[in-house]
């Protein structure tokens, strides 16, 4: 089974990622593309052999996703190339606008040097590109202890400064 990072730990990926022609197995957790979800949502939501996740790319109008989709346990954001930054905005819209609280996972051209940014927009799981070392990618989380936007786990300078100014 493939190793991925979830919540800053290396774990095995137990999900099966189906392409659009692949039959849905009776048992097990599966992800499907957003296009397939559009067509087969009825069928998929009535399946009781496992959980469903949906894969979203930069073209998907995330602003208009259904409430049902935003309650799924896994949404996967596809980065066809690490330079395609659209899914950073998707991640923020999902977390902030749709209040999505399930697993938000990056797949595709996912590399150590972008993981820090990805985590700060709300992505919490990473399928590191397969020719790269997952353990090496874990070091991305130690690089910064502060940020200016208040989106990281570190201290939020503005709040800290306001507090300091008041104290």
């Amino acid at each position, binding site marked *: 089974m493939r190793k991925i990072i979830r919540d800053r730990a290396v774990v095995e990926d137990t999900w099966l990622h189906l392409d659009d022609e692949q039959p849905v197995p009776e048992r097990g957790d599966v992800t499907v593309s957003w296009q397939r979800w559009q067509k087969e949502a009825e069928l998929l939501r009535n399946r009781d052999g496992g959980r469903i996740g949906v894969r979203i790319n*930069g073209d998907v109008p995330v602003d208009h996703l259904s409430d049902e989709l935003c309650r799924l346990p896994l949404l996967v954001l596809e980065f066809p190339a*690490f*330079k*395609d*930054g*659209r899914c*950073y*905005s*998707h991640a*923020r819209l999902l977390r*902030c*606008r749709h209040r999505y609280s399930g697993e938000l996972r990056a797949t595709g051209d996912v*590399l150590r*040097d*972008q993981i*820090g*940014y*990805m*985590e*700060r*927009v709300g992505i919490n799981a990473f399928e590191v590109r397969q020719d790269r070392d997952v353990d090496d990618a874990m070091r991305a989380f130690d*690089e*910064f*202890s*502060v*940020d*200016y*936007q*208040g*989106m*990281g786990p570190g*201290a*939020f*300078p*503005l709040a*800290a*400064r*306001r507090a300091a*100014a008041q104290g």
Partner: protein
Amino acid sequence: MYQYDSHDQTLIEERVAQFRDQTRRYLAGELSEDEFRPLRLQNGLYIQRFAPMLRVSIPYGMLSSDQLRMLGHIARKYDRDYGHFSTRQNIQYNWPALESVPDILADLAKVQMHAIQTSGNCIRNVTSDHLAGINPDEVADPRPYCEMIRQWATLHPEFAYLPRKFKIAVSGGPRDRAATQVHDIGLQLVRDDTGEIGFRVLVGGGLGRTPIIGEVIREFIPERDLLSYLEAILRVYNLLGRRDNIYKARIKILVRSMGAEKFREAVDREWSEIRDDPRLVRKPADFERLRTFFAPPNYAEGTDSGVSERAQAENPAFARWFRHNTVAHKHPGYRAVHISLKSLHRAPGDMTSSQMQAVADLADRYSYGEIRVSHKQNLLLADVPMDALPELWTRLSELDLATPNIGTLNDMICCPGLDFCSLANAGSIDVAADITARFQDLDYLYDLGDIRLNLSGCMNGCGHHSVGHIGVLGVDKKGQEFYQITLGGSSAEDASLGDRVGPAVSKDQVADTIEAIIHTYTETREGDEGFLDTYRRVGMEPFKERVYA
């Protein structure tokens, strides 16, 4: 000026460590060329014709004397003893070794400097008016807002991989010395009817191969909401900007294809959702805190005992310099002093390490230890007592930094061109030198008045040729360097794009062509009418006839 606290300092030190490791992994073959490129670009590092080029950020052009000393130290230790100040108020080093860049960044961090986001498809250095805080015509000092934007944009996780680079400029009022109309976002400080401070917001301006004047999409955004509004614009651009064609990826193309009105609606929809996000809302106390960093120095009284006036009467050279290279100041008894980086002996915008050291000392002595960089590639000492001017002039003259040519034809904006840049089609530095040599008679130059001549070595337009009163653009014609001349551009509040005079001319004809244009101007102007006004009145025809006669 702004002083880092422990958060700011920690961030840039962690950034240096991160880049040191990235460079190590690249040199060890663990990162491919393609993977390393955006990482090094977002730390200011280009690979150029002969060597890497490192662009160091000078936020909105403000430097302390210690910072300028460090820039000189870096030029001497890691480069060939000089640096080049750019139109975006930054400094570029043309010869650093890739392996030494992490050490350079570590040295910069010691004086609260960095090269973060000076290149790459991200939000770049915020630029502003070099006369901020000291000129009488501004609505408010733009620098506290620039610093707020700098912090918001620095390592913003959502906007590190935009479709293309993104530049923001802020002007303190209606007089525009920051070229806000030709930036991706231009912000102009304004007051509404109730006296509240806010911003007029322009989007979609830019130079390069498709020069466009930005469009106003908001007449007034309160200061409280500035960051949420910027974030809304950036999000719309990040999601909708083209990524399939590098030449159509700037926000100006998106705004043009959607239309400004549709674009504004999309931004407003987004903005209505995030407007009250506590991470983006700024309170009066936040501005108060930022403003304290830019408070005026403790100006002295009795700084104008007539020394400077007497020196002007006695010494015509000093009088020339005073008239052309110094600027009126809000506070009586003080002037702002331009340090001309347009000498016959160096490329426009270049400065040697010993000049940097010396100017740092002069700033400590005469101008409260601060130096500014203007987008016209000169430096400025903002707060000089009148009585100190003759002495300062003598010092600057010894350093070859007092050429009395600010605002004249010889005060050219000029990119590094074919001599350094891998994008360039033609040389620009040697053409600038030809033109400078041609117009050496100072009285003649002064008689011509303010003329903005801008020169770029290729259509990417780093030398702002499209907004020069006279623009010179280098093009390649079958392996030969040719130059297209344009007239009538401006990046000020009356912004306009230049019109092409006609077919491009060869390199050895550029100075002749400029001379022909200047003669046409002096013969057609009415009274003391400026070049731009004359051109706008009479149009292209008389110029064209003369040039191609």
